[in-house]
């Protein structure tokens, strides 16, 4: 399983989106998120975007007030994951138009939906923005 989880966390360390591709109990999730947030948010711009934590490698990137953190297996390609994060942000940007933290808060299910289109079972299955967004747009139209 390449990607184990995707987190979006704001500057204050509040989780805005959490998607896990393996089962963890709520307590485990909360502990893990806390540890990761403490570790990653303390780092500055001059430091690299990769942190090893437990048996995960965490690749993170900051966009404005939001941190995107992706936990991956040890042999995953870090740079590719950074590109994946960027793709995710671009996709959300295209859908919401200049995406911000509030968009994700109020449209969490849409953000989840995009992620579901892109990643399945920890594998990236789709990297084309219009392919990702077509189903959402269709659903928006029908409902």
């Amino acid at each position, binding site marked *: 399983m*390449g990607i184990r989880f995707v987190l979006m966390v704001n500057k204050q360390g509040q989780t805005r*989106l959490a998607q896990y591709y393996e089962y963890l109990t709520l307590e485990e999730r*909360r502990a893990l998120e806390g540890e990761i947030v403490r570790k990653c948010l303390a780092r500055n711009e001059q*430091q*690299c975007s990769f942190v*090893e934590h437990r048996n995960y490698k965490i690749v993170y990137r900051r966009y404005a007030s939001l941190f995107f953190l992706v936990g991956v297996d040890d042999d995953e390609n870090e*740079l*590719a994951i950074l590109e994946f994060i960027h793709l995710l942000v671009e996709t959300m940007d295209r859908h919401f138009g200049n995406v911000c933290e509030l968009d994700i808060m109020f449209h969490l299910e849409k953000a989840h939906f995009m992620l579901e289109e892109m990643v399945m*079972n920890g594998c990236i*299955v789709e990297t084309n923005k219009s392919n990702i967004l077509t189903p959402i747009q269709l659903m928006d139209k029908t409902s």
Partner: protein
Amino acid sequence: MAGSSIMENLFQRSLEDLIKAMRLQLIGESTFISKATEEIRREIKSTDQQTKSTALHKLSYLSSVHGVDMSWASFHVVEVMSSSKFAHKRIGYHAAAQSFNDDTPVLLLITNQLRKDLSSTNEFEVSLALDLLSRIATLDLARDLTTEVFKLLATARVFVRKKAIAVVLRVFDKYPDAVRVCFKRLVENLESSDPQVVTAVIGVFCELAAKDPRSYLPLAPEFYRILIDSKNNWVLIKVLKVFAKLAPLEHRLGKRIVEPVCDHMRRSGAKSLVFECVRTVLTGLSDYDSAVQLAVEKVRELVVDQDPNLRYLGLQALSVAAPKHLWAVLENKEAVVKSLSDDDLNIKIESLRLLMAMVSESHVADISKVLLNYALKSDPGFCNEILDSILKTCCNNVYEIVVDFDWYVSLLGEMAMIPNCQNGEEIENQLVDIGMRVKDARMELVRVGRDLLIDPALLGNVHLHRILCAAAWVAGEYVEFASNPFELVDALLQPRTSLLPPSIRAVYINSVLKILIFCLDCYLLQNDGSGSLYSGNLDGRQSELFSVKNDTEATELATCGGSNYEQDVGFNPRNTAEPSEDLSVENGIDRAAMHGKTFTSNLLEKKNSMQESIVSLLNRIELIFGPLIANQDVEVLERAQNILSLVQLIKEEIIDNSGQSVDIMEKKDTRVSAIINSMRDAFTTELGPVSISAQGRVAVPDGLVLKDNLDDLQEICGDTELPSSSFGTGGPHLTTNSDASSSNLLNNEESGPLNECTSLIEHRKRHGLYYLPTEKSEIVPDEYPRANDPKSNSNVNDEAAELVKLTEQSLLLKKRTNQTKPRPVVVKLDDGDIAPISVKRPEPRDDSLSGAIKDVLLGNETGPSVSRSYPSDKSSRKQTEKKKLSTNGRSEMKENEVDAEKPDPESPNSSSKNHGHSKHRRHRVKEKSVEGEEHDQRGKKKSGHHHGRRKTHQRAKSPLNVVSQTPVIPDFLL
């Protein structure tokens, strides 16, 4: 009240309302959430689908972002999932994906719903069901829905097909037999022209190949085509990962792919792809020099890049390369060293690792020095990283890299002095270990130990206690190398030792005992006046030093000795004034050396002053240890008591003699010297390193029943309280004073309070089963090497010769002048210095999965229960082989060739041999009544694969039938 409930239904808060309200709330987030949850609990019971699904929507939001428990709502989730309205269904599926796990009871209820949705014509519904399945599939779900997934693997709707492909990974994982149904279609998808499908399927194969690469060798042609044709970087990265796993297994494959990989490396502008190529080359294709060269070039660009990410990855790539291509690291030495002062801790640690990989015996001293200076300046975390890596590197393979142990020992001492040092335990182990292994280093060890012991400030640092423990042990054990034993005793007796934990205090006390014995022994020998006086370990220097000590301190000691109870006053300042005194002692040495000749004539005078110092020593010990009789810790108490009674005994004799003439003294008190002699003999037996497998070589005594299940120990442990921890921390020094005949358990009992004695006897009678019979505990098999085994010594000599050669070589490289002596002998045991690397290869976790895949790939589709190891299978395999794998005569030959290349245990020919062998083994193992590895394996299989029951059962019956098959490597590779 009724009115309000209607209002609630009509004006139910939507998720958006909830989020807005949460942002505005003033009552505190947790209160707000618990109120909202209560509200949801009410709403979710509603019969109205809209109300219910909205409530669930809110709940899953709260659960995912605020960690609210939603397991209680699982039945409602199922209800919402089965709604006919897509918007509701979506909420239900999402909630299920988020909250269900293997233990959710309602899981049984959703099988039909999932089946229905998987076969739906609405592709969004199918997609929802697939997504859920990919998260929560259990054995049952996977088994029951395999057919539906199989159908979707070939559907024309790409949107659904790619998801079905991704789901397969989970289905295979849970239900390996699904491979027989689905694998062919999965492989067909590899050839699809649709980029979306290829992206999904290569992701799946990348994961599958990571677990068991060998099974996928036959698919190499398909992967190769993707490597050549694909334009999608993501796909290329994944396929490179697959090849990185496959290439080491089949050298012809490497030859074939090395060019395309290099092509990508040269041409691609995407850093991620280039980096993946580099990684593939360094891990999978490291034998192809030109490729490695190219990769290292790329790495060089990375390590000097502005972007910290690229620098980090560059360093990581170098550490991948380091074991095989150290030159790559050496070429980038400057960049590596520069990274040591990077802003980023991660980069610093990587660079440190690389630096240690570069270290060789010729410059380990220089590098360590630089690093140590660096550690002093770094923050505590990194400082300890540095110390840790120096320690680990140097002790690697029994100090392979260390030539000059004096240097290394003093380095350890310096490390201990670093204020942030938290590696006490490792330093402790190494100090003791070097003491036991390297005779030539003992002098320096004692010196370093003395420096540590004598500094009262160090006693206050908790992290240093372990090091002090080692120093105290070394000082006691190798006291014959000490320049001044009295000084050591002073250090060990200083008042601040009360800050030490009892277990370490006990070591201190024991060391005092050893030093005392040593001093008394010297004293008695001197009284003998025989010519062989200092011929042994004590050279003439010893006697000089004694007198030097007396010269400088005699007056002070005399006053102390006279008045026992005023001593504490005089004692303290002497320690704090140590440095200057130290200097004078050293001056004294010079003086003494000059006047060395005159000492023999002054023998009598010396004897008197020596006696004075001995008496004062005894007095001091008595004074300091007196209060310890009331100590809480049994270990401290017992040792203090022992030493005190000894002191009393000796004091009587010596003080009686003190006033009298030399004649009487020379009559020599037989009682005291007999005691001292025997104790000295006990302590002079040298301790050696203990083989790590020593315990295993102790035969299990006859009649001892070893129970697998120790549950009934619980009740025994319940009714007695064993003396706590003090034994655990004792370490190797414990063996010095406990006579080996008594096992630890017995020791435990003896040290317990006396009044428990009778109850213990009773207790033993009841539970005698768990104790070793006393008379048998001494049985040690012959093959166990004694500490000073001549056999191992000869071995060491050979090694020493080799090492001398090595050092000569390294001396040529060195500019340092002070390293003129050869590397001292390091005692190495024949075996088990290092924990043995487990001989048994770990059972692949998903053995049944890879087995199934092999079956499918190699065309053996006769069903799950057919054993795969029949040699006759080969023909049928060939017949059903897929066309594109084009098996012809040549490939058969190749197959045999590959067979021959493979290590014995895996080729079918050797299976019978293998079988017989392990059978024999098991037999033998049984005789010894030790749990055998065969048993272990079987046990593991039984418990490990609770799914795939049928197959496990079969395998458990004939555990050795599992012989991995040689995949057929198709023609194209040649």
